[in-house]
């Protein structure tokens, strides 16, 4: 690998202060992303996917305690939200300002990151609206979000995220609030935009199918750690970690309609307030051995293709 | 028969030089506008039609009565009338009038004006005059300065004289004759003979009066004018005084609670004189239709339950006196304290109630009553609260029912929908004017401040009737002493204490409280230090 990575995350730990102790969202997350690469973070809710995304974007609440390192080697400086990193939120119904017309919302990052006038920024915003498939863009530019459908709103949200030409696009479950038909369209749009603009993409999803649809590489997160990583085809085709297998099995069993929002795996994830000893998945793992509960599994394989499980320890 | 004569000049000098209490040998200074607080704006400001303190407070400076009250022997001093004399048969009173008086519009004042006012305004329409002058048949005017009031029944001249200050304001005949007097514009744009002329009324803001340069009492008045600032809030009146924006607040417009603070401010004085002629009483009114209350022992028990000293101290902060009967002490002509009294004595009260056959029930309550404190004064409301507690102590459970003025007037004086009420009747210089009406039976419902209590005592009625016709002052006084004794024996209502108002004024205002009706008199001798 000779390219300079766009993003390098090492031993990222994020926790929030709670009434009696701390809530762990990330318990040591490592991740390297190349420019133009498309990665999906999958896992159950509470696995730390969204926290990882927010941490990368620098959007964590001020109360969050963050340890570890976040570097942007290809950038050579700290990233500026909006300018270097675009962010697409999960719910297009709440992530747009309800009282501002959409063109202005798209124009904002352009205006403030590209040093152009509002006029120019708005003109570019209208072009972007057209690009993301809102027609007639000129006429609808002045409309406010509630005049758009959910799918259209997510297109607008994508337009906002890419407006200032970021090198990295983060998308937090961008399709889970939408119906199936729209989901596919949005994924197509993301796919084409990322290719067209050479952006790297980190997409959070609980749905392996979505990951398969768009990602070069998949990271599986469980209880604040990455338990498996690898090229999409390999992870989906030959999952190693028992959790990945369970996740895929649950997702496949639900692949037929009616789709359920979350795949179900027997048992519950560990208490985020508890300190973890041993493999975090051990209590739910069908293959767990006694030592799984005492020793934390190390990473087996390369950073980009490997697994953290005693079953695969050398 | 009394005959009072006083020379014009002597009169004005006397009133200027003999102010009660504050006698400083300084010559009055002419000039300056006195700014005073007013809290109401009467719909009809004509004192010939409406005899009320609210009207008099402004109108008495513009429109004068035939005579005014005075401190000292006689109790009256001439205004538009120089002298008066009753006929031996009591059927007429002859007034000698000033001949040098002009109304503010320049027309001369004469006996025709008095005759017109007496027959067309006082007798026909005036709230107090309608009853008082019901026997007035005619007014003869043999010459411009003589008016002879003729009555169909004997009328004591003493009574007529005592009514002069409040009931006999004179407005010009030529402006009222031939008009609907009640809607006449001059009920607002006053034209009179007084020391001040009416300039303007800006509703909600102020009344403005200016000096009448042609006043018959020249060189009076001293002031260049008077401004009444309408200040509906009593707290605001205190502040305006303190800020120096007004010079004087009459009629206890400053809350008693603020008095102490204000009195400590340099240049501000509290004056408790000048209202003796309009002394109010705090009374417990009793509905005799209620079986328990028709028993005199129960009424006496209630009287014994009231600690008058406490009421004076706690409710009036000392600015009142316990009452002994329906006539206040100030009226030395009629007052007597040789009447039954009911000292504060709860044991006695309870014994009386037991005797009357109303023992305490299992819950400690003898019987329950509705108590309606009149909303007129802060003190009537507070007395309601005090009485509830006082009654509770002797086993009578009172429920306080608070109403606004119209509601109270209707409930007590029209519908008789009360058991006990707290009232505040005013004593107007003679028991026959507004006091005996509280004891007399046979009055139609709806008459405010009258016996709507269902009390009827033939002996009481006989005394009241006899006194109203008694021509001999000594006989009248004796009858009214009898009246007071009877009133306190039978106790149809319970006089608790008598109170007058307070004036708070800047000390630069001089000749304040120079007569017993000062606030509602003409203020011709009032002056301002520079």
């Amino acid at each position, binding site marked *: 690998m000779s390219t300079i990575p766009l993003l390098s995350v090492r031993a990222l730990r994020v926790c929030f202060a709670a009434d009696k102790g701390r809530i762990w969202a990330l318990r040591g997350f490592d991740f390297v992303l190349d420019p133009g690469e498309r990665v999906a973070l999958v896992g159950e809710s509470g696995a730390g996917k969204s926290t990882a995304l927010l941490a990368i974007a620098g959007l964590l609440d001020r109360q969050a305690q963050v340890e570890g390192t976040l570097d942007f080697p290809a950038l050579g400086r700290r990233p500026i939200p909006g300018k270097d990193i675009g962010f697409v939120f999960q719910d297009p119904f709440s992530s747009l300002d309800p009282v501002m017309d959409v063109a202005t919302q798209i124009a904002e990052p352009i205006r403030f990151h590209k040093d152009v006038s509002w006029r120019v920024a708005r003109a570019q915003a209208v072009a972007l609206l057209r690009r993301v498939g809102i027609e007639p863009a000129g006429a609808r530019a002045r409309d406010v979000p509630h005049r758009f459908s959910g799918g259209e709103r997510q297109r607008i949200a994508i337009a906002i995220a890419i407006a200032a030409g970021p090198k990295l696009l983060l998308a937090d479950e961008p399709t889970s609030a939408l119906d199936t038909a729209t989901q596919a369209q949005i994924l197509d749009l993301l796919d084409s935009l990322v290719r067209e603009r050479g952006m790297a993409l980190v997409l959070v999803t609980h749905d392996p199918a979505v990951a398969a649809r768009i990602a070069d590489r998949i990271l599986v997160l469980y209880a604040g750690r990455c338990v498996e990583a690898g090229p999409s085809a390999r992870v989906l085709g030959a999952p190693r970690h028992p959790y990945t297998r369970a996740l895929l099995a649950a997702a496949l069993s639900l692949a037929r309609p009616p789709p359920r929002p979350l795949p179900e795996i027997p048992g519950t994830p560990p208490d985020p307030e508890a300190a973890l000893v041993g493999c975090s998945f051990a209590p739910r793992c069908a293959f767990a051995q006694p030592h799984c509960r005492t020793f934390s599994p190390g990473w087996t394989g390369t950073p980009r293709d490997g697994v953290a499980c005693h079953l695969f320890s050398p | 028969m009394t005959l009072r004569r006083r020379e014009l000049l002597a009169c004005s000098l006397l009133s200027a030089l003999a102010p009660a209490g504050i006698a400083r040998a300084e010559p009055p200074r002419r000039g300056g506008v006195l700014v005073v607080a007013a809290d109401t704006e009467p719909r009809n400001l004509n004192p010939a039609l409406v005899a009320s303190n609210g009207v008099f407070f402004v109108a008495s400076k513009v429109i004068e009565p035939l005579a005014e009250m005075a401190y000292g022997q006689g109790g009256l001093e001439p205004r538009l009338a120089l002298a008066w004399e009753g006929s031996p048969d009591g059927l007429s009173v002859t007034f000698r009038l000033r001949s040098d008086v002009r109304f503010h519009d320049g027309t001369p004042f004469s006996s025709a004006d008095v005759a017109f006012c007496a027959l067309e305004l006082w007798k026909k329409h005036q709230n107090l005059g309608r009853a008082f002058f019901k026997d007035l048949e005619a007014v003869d005017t043999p010459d411009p300065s003589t008016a002879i009031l003729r009555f169909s029944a004997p009328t004591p001249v003493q009574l007529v004289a005592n009514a002069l200050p409040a009931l006999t304001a004179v407005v010009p005949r030529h402006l009222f004759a031939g008009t609907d007097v009640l809607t006449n514009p001059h009920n607002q744009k006053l034209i009179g003979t007084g020391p001040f002329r009416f300039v303007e009324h800006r509703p909600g803001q102020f009344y403005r009066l200016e000096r009448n340069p042609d006043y018959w009492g020249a060189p009076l008045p001293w002031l260049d004018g008077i401004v009444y600032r309408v200040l509906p809030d009593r707290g605001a009146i205190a502040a305006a005084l303190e*800020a120096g924006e007004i010079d004087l607040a009459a009629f206890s417009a400053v809350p008693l609670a603020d008095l102490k603070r204000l009195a400590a401010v340099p240049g501000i004085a509290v004056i408790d004189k000048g209202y003796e002629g309009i002394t109010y009483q705090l009374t417990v009114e009793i509905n005799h239709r209620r079986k328990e209350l028709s028993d005199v022992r129960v009424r006496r028990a209630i009287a014994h339950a009231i600690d008058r000293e406490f009421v004076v101290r706690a409710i009036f902060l000392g600015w009142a006196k316990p009452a002994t009967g329906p006539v206040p002490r100030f009226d030395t002509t009629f007052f007597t304290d040789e009447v039954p009294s009911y000292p504060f004595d709860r044991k006695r009260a309870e014994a009386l109630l037991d005797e009357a056959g109303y023992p305490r029930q299992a819950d400690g309550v003898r019987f329950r009553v509705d108590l309606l404190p009149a909303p007129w004064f802060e003190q009537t409301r507070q007395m309601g609260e005090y009485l509830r507690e006082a009654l509770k102590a002797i086993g009578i459970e009172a429920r306080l029912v608070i109403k606004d*003025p*119209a509601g109270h007037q209707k409930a007590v004086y029209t519908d008789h929908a009360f058991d006990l009420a707290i009232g505040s009747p005013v004593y107007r210089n003679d028991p026959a004017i507004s006091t005996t009406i509280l004891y007399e039976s046979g009055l139609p419902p709806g008459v405010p401040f009258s016996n709507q209590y269902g009390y009827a005592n033939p002996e009481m009625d006989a005394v009241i009737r006899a006194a109203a016709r008694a021509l001999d002052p000594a006989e009248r006084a004796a009858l009214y002493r009898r009246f007071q004794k009877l009133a306190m024996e039978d106790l149809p209502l319970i006089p608790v204490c008598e109170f007058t108002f307070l004036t708070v004024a800047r000390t630069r205002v001089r000749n304040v409280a120079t007569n017993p009706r000062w606030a509602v008199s003409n203020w011709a001798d009032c002056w301002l230090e520079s």
Partner: protein
Amino acid sequence: MSPGLALVRRRLAHAPLVLALVITGCFVLLEAAPGDAVDAYVASLGGDAGFLHELRARWGLDKTPWTRFLLYLAGLATGDLGISLTFNRPVRALLLERLPITLLLAFSAMAVALLVGGILGFLAGSRPGSLRDRLASACVLALNATPSFWLGIVLVLLFAVRLRWLPSAGIETIGADYRGLARLCDLARHMVLPVLTLGLVYAALYARVLRAGMVEAWRSDFVRAARAKGIPRRRLLFAHVARNALVPLVTVVGVHGASMVGGSVVVESLFAVPGLGRLAFEAVIYRDPALLVGVVLVCALLVIILNLAVDLLYGWLDPRIELADSPS
């Protein structure tokens, strides 16, 4: 037709119904209250039975309530608002006399309330939880806990009694007869304290509403999304946070603007401002139906106009609210 115009037309179409309800309501209210205008009047002076009877006949109170109501309506149909029994003057003249000063007081107070409340609320809401928020919120809390008459008295004692910078009451210097600009200045000096008193109490309310709206906006997804765009904090604060918090603020201003016109009895009394609030109060105390209906009619009209203004403002502030919805 533009949605705004349609709304205006629809609202005005409802106005007669509202006004009819208001008129009937006032009449019923005063009819149901014990005692009539004569009772209220004689309560201050006394008089014999004939005096009362004569007054009732003269004031038309000897007629049945129905007859009086119909007579009033008949008069109203010809634009006659009747005669006030309390003031013995045409109601119309009284209203015209008092409306300007009421509007001046209400709108000045509203401006003060919006300015002070806006600044306090904005300071507090711009950084919830900060020292600045705690200071501003403490001010708001103190103001909010202050009854208006008490605030008024304190202001009077300070500015009129101690410092003597401003008059304690009234609306003009009596007898000064100022003209033109001098008169305006005189009026302004007299209005400072009442406007402050009335305005500051509402300022506390507005500040709370604005702060609450801003706190909610800070927590919202769209502000987080706006933050992800990397726009300057100033832009975020004004264009997104504050802008969204204006919607609840305008609602509250609309609701209370009307009560500022009619409900400033305390302030009008304390500062001797001859306004509509006191007039309505006196109409009730003195059982003066024509006057009460007159005042309430004017207030109802003002409320209708104000609500219309607020709704039109809504359309601009919050495009989610469709102006031309259900044109039923």
